[in-house]
């Protein structure tokens, strides 16, 4: 079951939205206020998991969400958080899980990448470079003298690195 206490109850961004309720822009504002439960600095929109949003009439909202990794335990929580956020401002949401096309880290927004870097996580390289051992820049000191510690980090989407200049460990959001 989902622990609803972990879902933020106030959606300030949505309340501060300049768009009028009942418009698709307003729905996107609400979605931009929903954080990813594992990397809360990113919104679900930054993460690129919200694929399609449809507004039917003034209240009914249909949202297509795609999972990042097949086994990502946050998927259910992401869907629940989206529902709760939309219901909190009076929408009647319907969430659909879509698998195709498969999520890629290329869908992460530019703004999201910048937020990740500030948070101390190296943002994903372009998906086409998958498998290539690219030099990774340390998000703490900017050095490119880094080495991979493990392909798998604290969540399925991240790898572990170590900076050989500032000696800090850091995580890299894998390209997939």
């Amino acid at each position, binding site marked *: 079951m989902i622990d609803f206490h972990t879902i933020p109850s106030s959606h300030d961004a949505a309340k501060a939205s300049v768009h009028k309720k009942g418009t698709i822009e307003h729905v996107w504002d609400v979605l931009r206020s929903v954080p990813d439960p594992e990397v809360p600095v990113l919104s679900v929109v930054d993460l690129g998991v919200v694929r399609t949003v449809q507004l039917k009439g003034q209240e009914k909202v249909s949202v297509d969400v795609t999972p990042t990794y097949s086994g990502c335990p946050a998927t259910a929580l992401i869907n629940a958080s989206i529902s709760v956020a939309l219901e909190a401002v009076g929408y009647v949401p319907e969430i659909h899980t879509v698998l195709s096309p*498969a999520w890629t880290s290329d869908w992460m927004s530019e703004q999201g990448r910048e937020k990740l870097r500030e948070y101390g996580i190296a943002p994903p390289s372009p998906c086409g470079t998958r498998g290539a051992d690219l030099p990774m820049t340390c998000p703490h000191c900017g050095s490119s003298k880094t080495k991979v510690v493990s392909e798998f980090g604290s969540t399925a989407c991240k790898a572990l690195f170590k900076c050989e200049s500032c000696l800090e460990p850091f995580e890299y959001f894998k390209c997939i």
Partner: protein
Amino acid sequence: MGNVEYSQDARKALTGYVLGLADDCLVLGQRVAEWLGHAPAMELDIACSNLSLDLIGQAQFYYEYAGELENAGRSADDLAFMRDEHEYRNHLLVEQLNGDFGKTIVRHYLFSQFSLLRSNGLAKSNDPKIAAIAQKSVRELEYHVKFSADWVRRLALGTEEGHSRIQTAIDDLWSFTSELFNDVEQESALFSAGLAVAPSMFEEEWCSQVNSLFAEAGIKIPEHATLITKGRMAGHHTEHLGHLLAEMQFLQRAYPGLAW
């Protein structure tokens, strides 16, 4: 994604095939998860849990679809927890015991290389749901192959001890690889309809990848791979699957329908 209409026979064959895909993922996912709290280093402990999560996630998608195709009201959990050993269609390779970390890594490499090639083929399946799950799996499996291949190299090229353990692992596991490439008769109609992929189609590619990795690691691959049992399609398994299921299914068997 529109649902495809199948004849009763095709639907039955496809259900069985999709269950086989799910069972492979679940059984290996459960095995790898046994390392949780026991792996040789914390980074490996974390890696094993992540490998397992990917596999169990893939299994869940395939089970959900198998349940839909079967149309008998069975959920993904019913299919995973309420079927007996002889109903499981996983390849015998994935149910083999973890052994030491070297054996786990060799088993993981042999299977993920197979699963990656199979998923690459299935990503072009005429069944849109299978294609979608396979496309998603490919991206994850690329990391599984890279991770396990790196560890085969590291262990085999590191110390004498590591080398001998990787050699023992391949000697123990090799006989189970022949089953991976049997084009089973029950699935032939699915192959010709472009719904499933005949494993013989990518056997050569698999052999070339596997041979090149083990040659690089200085490991000798056994000359013969013969499996004595009739294997998964006849409901035959090694003694290890029953023990794995007993542990994995205990809670749902003791308290059917229990939810967290």
